[in-house]
Every structure is written in C-alpha cells, then in structure tokens.
C-alpha cells in the first residue's frame, strides 16, 4: 500500500512532463493532487502499521542471477520518514504555487525527486535503495539550475557533484559488501546476517557512512548545503533541507550502522580521546552542531542563516545515531522528522513569503522594511518556526534534541555539553534573525514612508502550508507518542542486531 506513494509520484512526474505547456494552473493542481495522494497513502500506511514490525510491501526478483530483488518494505522508521516526505511534498507544492516559468517541468522534476525519496525510505534491498538514492540527484540539479537564484548554476553543480561523490563512495562500499558476502543477494536483511568479517567492516563502515553523511551535511563535507539551499527555489530548498538531507542520515542508519555494526567497535588504541569510528563521527557531528550555529550567527543573508542552521540541526541527527543507545537513536529519528518539518517552514518563510515579495535577503536591508507591520503573518509564522527551531518545549524539536542530549550524555557527557552550546547559539541566531527581519526598532526613513510600496498579500497556499507544517510540529510537540510509539520499537529491533 505504501508503495503507491512511489508509483504515484513517478507517474505524476511523467504525466506532468507530457502536459501541454502554457497552462500552469493545471500543472499546479495536478502536482498538489499527487502530493496529497502521496500524503494520504503515507498516513494510511502509518496508521495501518502501528504496532507492527517490518512489513514487506513488494518482493519481486529483479536480476535473479545476482540475487537482486525489487524489495519494498517498511518498518517504524521508514513509516515515520515516509510521513515526513508526504508532509514536505504537500507543503513544497503549496509554496511553489507562484512558479510561472516552465511550471510543468518544475513540478515534473519535483515529483520525480519526491518519488526517489519515497523509494529510498521504502527500499529494503541495497541495490534498489541505491538506485532510488541516485535517481534523486538529477532532479535536484535541474531544480536549482533552472529555477534558482543566487549563483544557481554553480550551486547546482556543486550539489550534484558532492552528492554524486558521496554516492560513489557508497557504491564502492556496496559492491565490496556484496561481493564479500558471496555475491548472493543484495537484500538488507540478508547482508546484515551475512557475517561480514570485522576487519572488512572496519574500513567499509567509514567509507559508506561518510558517503551518506556527505548528503546529510556532516562537517566538513557540508559546504554544498548552504550554497545549494540558498540558491534553490523555495519548494526545492524545503525539500532539500527537509527531506533530502534526511536521505543521507537514513542511509547512515539503515546501511552504515545496520550492515556494518562492528565498524563502530573500538580500534584498540586511542588518539586524543578518539578510539573508534564512533568517536570520530560523533566528534564531527558535534563540531557540525557548534560550527553550523556559530556561522549562522555571523551571516548577513537571511537564507544563509537558515541554511547553516540546517547543518547544525543535522549534526544532532548524526550525534544521536552515534550514541548507539535506544534513547539517542530514537531522538535522532525524531529529529529527522522534526527538523524536516521545521526547516521546510523556515525556508518557506524566508524564501516564498519574504524574498519573493521584498526581493532581498540581506538582513541589513530587511531591517528597514518593518515587516512585522507589513507582513504580520510572516512575522508570527517565523516566531513559531523560530521557537520550534530552538527546541522550545511544545514543539517537536524539544523532544528530539532532549533525547539526543540524554543519549549522548550516557556515552560521553562532553558531547552533550558541546551540543548544548550549540543550542544556546541556536537561540542567539534565531533571535538575531527575528529581530533584524521582523521586529527591528529602526525608524523608517522619510523616503521609505513615501515609497512604502505595498507588499503582495498572503495567499491561501502559503497560509495552508504554514498551518500544515507548524501544526505538524506542534502536534508532535504536544503528543510525541504519536511518533515515538512507532519509532521506539523499530530502533529497539535494529539495536538488537537485526534489520528485521
């Protein structure tokens, strides 16, 4: 049933590409219909799967001689992330309602990207997962290169090459694991049980993990992310920061940790307190959290603040994964969902609501525009999004970050302390952005009062999108069990040593 999310998205993309040009309304509504259908499927699948473990959706032999199957299945983690994708897709379409240039192609690439993302989250065959992972790269390139803004061609190419390089690393690891396990099968479950030798896992794990972590924005391979997100059109940056970065983290979990668990074992020697790949990646994650936050604090471009904040928040996900305990990893998965929603909301506000109207993202210029008066909806939406981003209780981010912090504390209190610093800086840069963009105290110049051009009114898709995303974050923030009840058993099973 969940598999239909994939099929619908790709079918939608194909139909979209064949639609007659010159009728953007048709394209928009079709895209919305497909996205909503995908969300409906995701919700239905989520509810149907409550209380169940891994459910196999489709299992068809694909290339039998090599043991490759078209195997789609979903466990708790997949279901949550599919739900995220559904929400992000609908919101993304809503916030792209005003695209006039080559609308068909935009939504065709958009839906293809969504289809690829759904595919990754639902694949339980490593080859299939990789195929969907790579499929997602090309639409990203075109979305940024054609409809983006600042330095879009450069940003698009950088993003594409970084992603491709990351997936090249994953491919090497995939091939190595497949052949080392006897070239029998590429199923995740089978490979996890294949008993790959520890020495093999020791080098294959960092290779695969790094390959995926590049897409997750791990420091120091994160530089594509702020550039790419800023250059991308709103709908694309919502997807990129919201969902695509989570593909990387998901790969780290589902492939890296699940298939090569012994890669995280201690090396037997330690250097400056680092004695295993786990320590290495945890430290990199923590650096990412703090570095991302500090750099965000120093930005002069509104969207860059949010771009770097994404790097910082993804650091939490990676840190949570490296805790290797129930609470930390649950927090990591919850953070994937939570940040996906929140990042989408932040980019929507910065891009669609503010930039499309004011045509500037420079904080110094926005300061003079008194947006709290002229765009009150945006101001309050940003207040809510900002509160969610800093981890205010009542929103989803609080639970996620709290669990990651607690989980990290159980392994190494210093990680928690450093991450806590990141949270504090997070408050600072959100505060700064809020002050400068919306609630600045500068008096308008006389010239401005004269000109004071009217800003376009808020449209219904924007309102719907904000309500959808903010509502999702709030709902999870107030009743975290709706997701935790699904995530916790799945994490428990994964930790118990099976990808079952």
């Amino acid at each position, binding site marked *: 049933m969940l598999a239909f999310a994939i099929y619908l998205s790709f079918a939608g993309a194909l139909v979209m590409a064949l639609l007659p040009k010159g009728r953007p309304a048709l394209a928009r509504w079709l895209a919305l219909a497909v996205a909503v259908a995908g969300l409906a499927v995701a919700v239905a699948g989520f509810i149907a799967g409550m209380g169940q473990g891994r459910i196999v959706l489709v299992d068809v032999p694909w290339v039998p001689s090599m043991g490759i199957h078209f195997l789609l299945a979903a466990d708790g983690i997949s279901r949550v992330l599919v739900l995220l994708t559904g929400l992000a897709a609908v919101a993304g379409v809503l916030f792209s309602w005003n695209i006039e240039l080559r609308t068909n192609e935009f939504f065709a690439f958009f839906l293809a990207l969504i289809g690829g993302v759904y595919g990754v989250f639902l694949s339980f065959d490593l080859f299939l997962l990789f195929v969907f992972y790579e499929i997602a790269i090309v639409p990203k390139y075109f979305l940024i290169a054609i409809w983006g803004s600042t330095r879009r061609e450069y940003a698009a190419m950088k993003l594409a090459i970084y992603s491709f390089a990351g997936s090249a690393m994953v491919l090497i690891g995939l091939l190595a694991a497949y052949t080392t396990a006897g070239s029998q099968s590429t199923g995740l479950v089978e490979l996890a049980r294949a008993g790959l030798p520890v020495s093999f896992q020791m080098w294959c794990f960092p290779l695969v993990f790094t390959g995926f972590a590049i897409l997750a924005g791990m420091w120091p391979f994160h530089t594509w992310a702020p550039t790419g997100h800023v250059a991308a059109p709103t709908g694309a940056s919502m997807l990129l920061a919201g969902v695509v970065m989570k593909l990387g983290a998901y790969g780290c979990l589902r492939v890296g940790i699940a298939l090569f668990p012994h890669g995280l074992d201690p090396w037997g020697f330690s250097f400056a307190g680092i004695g295993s790949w786990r320590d290495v990646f945890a430290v990199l994650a923590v650096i990412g959290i703090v570095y991302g936050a500090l750099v965000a604090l120093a930005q002069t471009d509104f969207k860059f603040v949010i771009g770097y904040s994404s790097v910082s928040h993804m650091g939490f996900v990676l840190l949570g994964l490296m805790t290797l305990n*129930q*609470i930390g990893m*649950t927090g990591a998965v919850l953070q994937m969902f939570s940040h996906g929603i929140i990042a989408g909301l932040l980019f929507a506000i910065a891009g669609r609501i503010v930039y499309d109207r004011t045509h500037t993202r420079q904080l110094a210029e926005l300061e003079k525009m008194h947006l*709290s008066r002229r765009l*009150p909806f945006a101001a309050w939406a940003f*207040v809510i999004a900002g*509160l969610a981003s800093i981890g*205010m*209780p*009542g929103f989803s981010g609080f*639970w996620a970050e*709290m*669990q990651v*912090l*607690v989980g990290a*504390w*159980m392994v190494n209190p210093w990680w928690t302390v450093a991450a*806590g610093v990141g949270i*504090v800086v997070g*408050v600072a840069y959100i*505060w700064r952005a809020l*002050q400068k963009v919306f*609630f600045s*105290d500068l008096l308008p110049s006389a010239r401005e009062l004269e000109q004071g051009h009217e800003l376009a009114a808020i449209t219904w898709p924007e309102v719907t999108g904000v309500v959808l995303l903010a509502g999702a974050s709030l709902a999870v923030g107030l*009743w*975290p*069990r709706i997701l*935790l009840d699904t995530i*916790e058993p799945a994490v428990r099973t994964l930790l118990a040593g099976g990808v079952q």
Partner: protein
Amino acid sequence: MSGFPILTLLTVLPLAGAAIALFSGRHARGVALITTGACLALALVVWTEWSQLPVIGGYGFIEQHAWAPSLGIQYHLGVDGLGALMLLLSAIVTLMSVDAAHRVHHQPGLYFALVLTLEAGLFGSFTALNFFHWFLFWELSLIPAFFLIKLWGGARRGPAATQFFIYTMAGSAALLVAFLAVFVSTGSMDFPHLTLLALTGELEQMVTARLGPVMIWLAIGVLAGFAVKVPMIPFHTWLPAAYAEAPSPVTMLLTGAMSKMGVYGLLRIALPLFGHQIAQMRTPLLVLAVATVVMGAWAAAAQKDLKRIFAYSSVNHLGYCLLAIFALAVPAAGAAAVTSQAMALNGVILQMFNHGITAAALFWFVAMIQTRTGGHRGIDQFGGLRKPAPVLAGLMGIALFSSLGLPGLNGFPGEFLIFRGVFPLAWVAATVSILGLLVTAVVILTVIQKVFWGPVAEHCVNFPDLHHGERLALAPVIALMLLVGLVPSLIVSSVNPTVMNLLAHWRF
C-alpha cells in the same frame, strides 16, 4: 479528587479564548473579559472545592497520564493550597489587567490573545507536577510577555524587551540544565516523587553517584533561574526597564502574577529538592535577600517615575518572601523553630497573594492617571489630586497604604507573619530588613504627599475623577484588600494545612 479534568480545562480555556480573540478585532477585549471571568469562576471553584477536599498526599484535582515515558515525562497536574491560591491570584490579576486595558488601539486582537496565552502559561505552571510540563508553561508565559512589551510598550521598549528576554532565558537555561542532570540521575521528572527522594536523602546520593559532587551546582543553577524571575539582587536589572516600558496593564501582569512564578518555583522546586544545599548556603542567600529588601526600597526612594517607584517597590516586597524562604532553611529544626517556619511560610504565601493584588491595583491606578494626563507619570508632575479626584485619591490611597503595610489592609498580615517567623530564625537579617519597611513607608508617604496633597498643580485642575465603570471595576479589588486585611484567616486557614504538609516534606 475530582474525576473532571478541571485543571486541564482551566489551562485550555484561556488558549481557546486567545484563538477567538485573535480574530475578534475590536471585540477582542470583550472576548478576553468573558474568558478571564470564566477562568476566575473556575479558579474560585478550585479554591473552594480544594479547601474542602480531604488532603490526600497534599494534592487535589490530580490528573496523571503518560506523555513520553522514555524521558520520564508525564502529564501530571495537581494543586495544593499554594497552587490553588496562585490560580486564584492569576485569575484575578489577569481580569484586572484586561479590565485596565481599554485603550488598545493597535491590533487589539493580537494583544488580548497574547494576554490570554500568558494567563494559560500561568495556570499551567501553577498546576504542573512534572518538570517538563512546568517548564513548558514557564517558557510559554515568557513569549507573550516579550511581545507585549515589544509591540505595545513605551519609547525604549526594544532594549527593555530584549533584556527581559535574555535574562529570563538565561535563567531558564540554568534551570533546564539542572533538571536534566536530575533526570539523568534519577530517571524521573516528577515533583512529588523527587520531593520524596530528597526527603530521604536519596536524591543527593543518586546525583552524586551518577555525576559526582555537583548537587550544589545544580542548586545554584535552580536558584539562579528563579532569582532572575522574582527577581533577586543582583539579577534584577531587567525589571525596572521592563516594568516601566511595558504598557501598564502588562506591568500589572508582570508584577502581579509572573513574579510570583519565581517564588512559587522556589517553594515547589528549590526548597523541596535542594533544601540541604540551600541550608548550606543560607548565609549568603540571606544577605542577598536582605539586599533585595533594602536596595529595593532605597532605589524606589530615588525614582521620579511612578512606575519605576512601584517597580522597585515590588522588588522590595518580594524580597520579604525571599527573606522568609531562606530563613526557613534551618537544619534540624526543633518544635519552636517549626512553628516559626510555619509562620514564615504562611507569611510568604499570603504575601504572594496580597502583593499580587496590591501591586496590580497600583499599576492600574498609574494607568488611569497616565491616560488622564496624557502620559505623565512623573511624581513631580502632579499635586493636590485629592481635590479634583477625591475618589481616585481615596481608593489609590487605600492601595498605597496596603503597600506600606498598614494593619487592617491586606499588605499587613503577610509581612507580619514573615517577620514573626523570621525573627527567631534569623534575627540579624530580620532586623536589617526592618530598614526596608521604614524606607518603604517613606516612599509611599512621599508619593501620597506629592501626588494627592499639597497645592493643586495647574494642569491637574480639570483632572477627571473616576467614572462609574472604573469605580465598579475597582470596588471589588479594594474590597478584597480590606477583606483579606481584616480577616486573613480566610486564606490562612486554607493554606495552613498545605504549609504543614510542605514543611513535613522538606529536609534541610
């Protein structure tokens, strides 16, 4: 123990009202009045029902559900006498605040929505029995307060709001860190449970076992968080600016209810859990409390702006609460000491209630004066108001005398009990604090003299007196002041069992 989730209702009602008010435009004040009125009714119900309930473990109206079990977080609400009184206070003060805000021209819908959200935050934090829930509402009240100052405040509202926000946030951060440490050590975030652990000394053992000798730092963190809110010297510097720049109805809320969150927190969290640590630091804490009392009064004397006078006076009045709280913390108290402790604690609770009402009323009067004189509120800008506005003078006089602590008015019983209780426990501190009383008296009398007596200032000749609506609105408040002042046992008798229960659970 009622099966009906009255506390949840009480917390949700203002939020619902806020949602409606947001879109009500000009009618937002009406919506807010109705909502706060309903909340007051509910709070009264809670108060009266509670005092008739048998005391089961101290708490009534308990609601308990699992929220995020893996993090030890429960949806756990309940009130004891202290909580119920605070609910009543919040409801009353908010109603007063909404009543006073009849001139919100700019975005009234948003204004009243924020006020109601703040009320929800107050209710939530006074009924919470689990740290997470409590912290959620603690923070929830901060956001509307910030925006209320920032968007409707006076000329220098920007820096005032910023300072307010940053200080309180920093305090909250300290609280959060401390509680995380507690959670990591004990796996629980539940106040009653943690109180029991602390009583037997297990809490300290668990924390030390898990994290090392950090208990004292946790205590400091927690104290810091509350010290900012009350405020206690030297964390008070945000207060004068915030109180002055905020619109007066908002200041009513800030001083009437929000500052009580800090004291409440000390009573609900700091003393039960970290009593031993507080007892260890008793002397420096007493010094700070006394400083608060004295400096508050002294600074008030130096001000020229009515609002700032009352702001510092608030600092002073709450300083008495701090004094009593820290004086309480004597290890191994004998029977006589227990009596003193009970008296002091009763005094604190009573003072919280009374000061809330009185301070809110005072700022209400300031608001009225301000609107009548077009924004003037400097103490030297008035003179002889009792002639053109005798009713105003009379009613405000009552409020001012209550603030001074005149017997017969509600300001007296609280301070009396506090001093009665503190003297045997910490006579040096009590003696020095009397200075505060004296200076306060001077300040209040000066205000009365300069504003109401003396020759009538030129521009005050046509000063309109209180009109019918205002008299009607103020009458119950003044009546309450008199009532509580004359018959304090109305409150004390209901609160005393809680006090004894609390003391029984605190270990110093």
